[in-house]
């Protein structure tokens, strides 16, 4: 194996990792917000909201992320590619997160909603104080999984030219004519990111379990 390119090109991997983390972090934030809204829409009694959420989730989950990325990038003119990447990833992950949250909320005992409402608590307050905190325990493991998937899937934004870890790895391969070894480095970096995240989430989960 020939890693002689590293001293000259290591900065490509570092800055690429930076972009990958940046895009993933923003996607987590927007995906969570979008997912929460969609989950509440899907569980609401309003038929219009409900049908929209159902259609959105089914469509996004039923089409490739690559196409969604192209549609956002080429469909909206003058959109900076970084924004296109984050938007497409967020649109995509919101659909998956919505299903995770909905399932988590659905697993909370129906009596909890009834008890809170019978005390006079409005719907929103009931979700905030009673339903969501309990649903979090069901949601967190699946959500952690989704975040890990998201870091890996973010490699796809390299196709529209964002200088993420995948893109920069290809740059190094092109410049050095070394086809294999840069991929090993990239794979190792992705693994360190996802492994660290999964250990961190495991810790959070254990702490939540202690508190009940």
């Amino acid at each position, binding site marked *: 194996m020939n890693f002689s390119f590293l001293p000259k090109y290591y900065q490509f991997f570092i800055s690429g990792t930076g972009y990958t983390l940046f895009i993933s972090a923003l996607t987590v934030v927007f995906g969570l917000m979008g997912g929460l809204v969609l989950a509440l829409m899907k569980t609401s009694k309003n038929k219009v909201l409900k049908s929209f959420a159902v259609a959105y989730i089914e469509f996004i989950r039923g089409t490739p992320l690559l196409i969604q990325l192209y549609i956002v990038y080429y469909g909206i003119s003058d959109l900076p590619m970084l924004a296109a990447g984050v938007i497409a990833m967020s649109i995509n992950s919101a659909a998956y997160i919505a299903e995770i949250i909905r399932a988590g909320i659905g697993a909370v005992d129906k009596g909890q909603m009834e008890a809170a409402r019978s005390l006079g608590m409005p719907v929103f307050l009931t979700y905030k104080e009673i339903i969501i905190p*309990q649903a979090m325990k069901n949601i967190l493991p699946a959500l952690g999984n989704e975040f890990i998937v998201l870091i890996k899937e973010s490699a796809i934004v390299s196709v529209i030219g964002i200088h993420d870890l995948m893109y920069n790895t290809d740059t190094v391969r092109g410049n050095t004519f070394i086809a294999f070894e840069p991929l090993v480095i990239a794979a190792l970096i992705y693994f360190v990111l996802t492994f660290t995240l999964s250990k961190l989430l495991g810790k959070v989960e254990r702490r939540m379990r202690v508190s009940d």
Partner: protein
Amino acid sequence: MIEIKNLGKSFGKLEVLKNVSHTIKQGEVVVIIGPSGSGKSTLLRCLNMLEQPTSGQIIFEGDCLTDPAIDIDVHRQKIGMVFQQFNLFPHKSVIDNITLAPLKLKRLPKMVAMEKGEALLKSVGLMDKRDAYPNQLSGGQKQRIAIARALAMEPDVMLFDEPTSALDPEMVGEVLDIMKNLAKNGMTMVIVTHEMGFAREVADRVLFMDEGQIVEIGTPEELFGNPKEVRTQSFLSKVL
């Protein structure tokens, strides 16, 4: 205080309540008995609109709860409810279960809410469980906390939906004692229960329901001692 007017409720094709009317006055203790599936729990759950009636009206303190434009949350604050399955909030401590609604809905200062909560805990004899979590309590203790939680909103009426049905026999007494105390202190109560002895002791009026209708109404002496309807007689002969 509560007026039930021609109430009907259907789940799909199944008619659970048929044209039920009744009036409950302040300070009265009304016990609803009847075989399972007779609609007694559904009737109770219609009183605070946990079930949406299909037809008819509920008038509570002059306001029509079945009016779709009404802010039901405001009225529910005045109607306490206790469930068969307790439904305590498992992620909150006992004192937080009790003070949550007063803090968030009545916006009581924390000190005041805590003091009131502790007074309620004392009245149900569970001050030592103040900081415990629901999963550390026995069934009877859970239900006593659930009663305290409902009382914390200082409701005008309390609804009890088979409050002792999920309890081990030796814990039924402690919950009934608290309910008796409430009745003695003048609380308006509507109780669905299978505890006939309790009904006899505290009820001002007993309603016997069957197949979605109120079949017979009477004082405990009348209904238990000398039931007039055949269906009441046959039901009582099975449970007494």
